[in-house]
């Protein structure tokens, strides 16, 4: 899951680094990054869910362990 934002924001730069089309009047590269600022938490939220599920045989980690 964590690889998705890396591919989208970093490795694929030559595919999206251009001005047109301009969604909402914003250059495409700028728009693309703004969208991924919003999509990255979604990916990580998914990763968090997955990790929770893998750990579920054990009792969930208690919050107040000190």
């Amino acid at each position, binding site marked *: 899951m964590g690889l998705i934002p890396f591919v989208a*924001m*970093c*490795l694929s730069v030559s595919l999206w*680094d*251009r001005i047109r089309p301009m969604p909402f009047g914003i250059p495409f*590269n*700028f728009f693309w990054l703004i969208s991924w600022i919003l999509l*990255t938490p979604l990916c*990580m939220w998914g990763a968090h869910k997955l990790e929770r599920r893998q750990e579920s045989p054990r009792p969930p980690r208690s919050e*107040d362990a000190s």
Partner: protein
Amino acid sequence: MSGASVALAAMLLVVAAGSALGFYAGGRHKMDLEQWAVAGRGFGALLVWLLMAGEVYTTFAFLGASGWAYSRGAPVLYIPAYISLGYVVSFYILPQLWEVGRAYRLQTESDFFEQRYGSKQLAAFVSILGVVFIVPYVELQLSGLGFIVQAASFQAIGRTLAMVIAAVVVGGFVLANGIRAVAWSSVLKDVLLLAAALSIGLGVPSFYFHGIRPMFAALVRAHPNHLVMPGATQNLGHGWYVSTVLLNAVGFYMWPHVFGAAFTAKSGDVLRRNAVIMPLYTITLPFMLMAGFAAILIIPGLRNGDLSLLTLVRRTFPAWWLGVIGGAGALTAMVPAAILILTAATLFAKNFFRPLFAPQMTDDEIARLAKIMVVTLTGAALGCAIYSSISLVGLLLLGYDGVTQFFPGVVLGLYWKRVTRRAVWSGMLAGVIVVVLLILSHHDPLFGLNAGFVALALNFVIVGIVSLLTPAECSGFEEAPTTDVRVE
């Protein structure tokens, strides 16, 4: 009242409110070393979030990012990308780090190296490197603060005097409060920063161009190359972008102060949830970039791009709002500067001086030495800020090149049993030497790649090879954990 006094008064009010919040929060706890440095390891999700946001969104995001958008153009997009990806990396590393941190009662990044590789010398080396590379980061904050005071006083207070005032305030702030105060001051800072970002990023384009769409249309007509890489530069193309984003994303949590923040959390899951939400915080950045882009058309020909945002604000908004934005900006510089200085001072006293020169020192004496170091380091950064002229972004890139060299030692130390002390030593030394040589000989970027990235790759290769050549060692994380009985 004149514009300058209105702006300065508003700014002072904001800074005073932020500090008062911090003093109030810090005052209720007795300050021993553990409390001062990691807040007794008792921060829940909210406070860790605040602390980390306080550390990450510095005047670099405020003035530096808009400055690069103005002077360099599209390469500035590396900033939102690497910050978001830094959190992705943290999701996978920090919880493990927190586990060993709790088991062995680690407070700092150097403690980690000492425990894992069983070497005080290696830990001391990590500390001193950490301190050295933190200085440009503090310098960045003080320069930024200098710009802000200068702008808010309508040039009545000179840059040097402004930076001296800034340094005194920051130093005093750290000495009195410790880390808990810092987390609370950043609440006000972040709220105001968001307001500032919205008003600038949306207000400026609609004021001058009647909206974002016409602004970009005008910009594309006037400077068609500015908005795609390499922008206004010769050598910051796609290779540079990829290597810099990767380098900074992995280096993000290698900063000793951010690394240490992981230990303030109550549980590993706090950190994981934190990593999920934090990227959303990056959303203020595009607004800052927008201001930088707008400034190209409105105030072309500024000699120093880092001044573009403030100049624009002063031209567009009434003096009191300039003051509020200036105050937000000032807190944005002071909060991280305080954390940086605090971390560097603790590292120097606890992980460098004591183990090498004075093993019999008590925790109280360490705390006292740390406070002397606070003053020394603030002075050093102030000196650098007065005499150097690198752009804000340039300063941070320099720091990243350095601290990222810790990454192989940390990540392999956590996940690969075979990695040895000598391997980490050789990799780190090679990485740092290569970085320094490349930068001093002006070979950054090298073949279109970030110099720090080249050094990091070499570092990894050396750690791998030397680990396989040297005999296996027992990892410090296989010893029985320190029994964790704490008297509250």
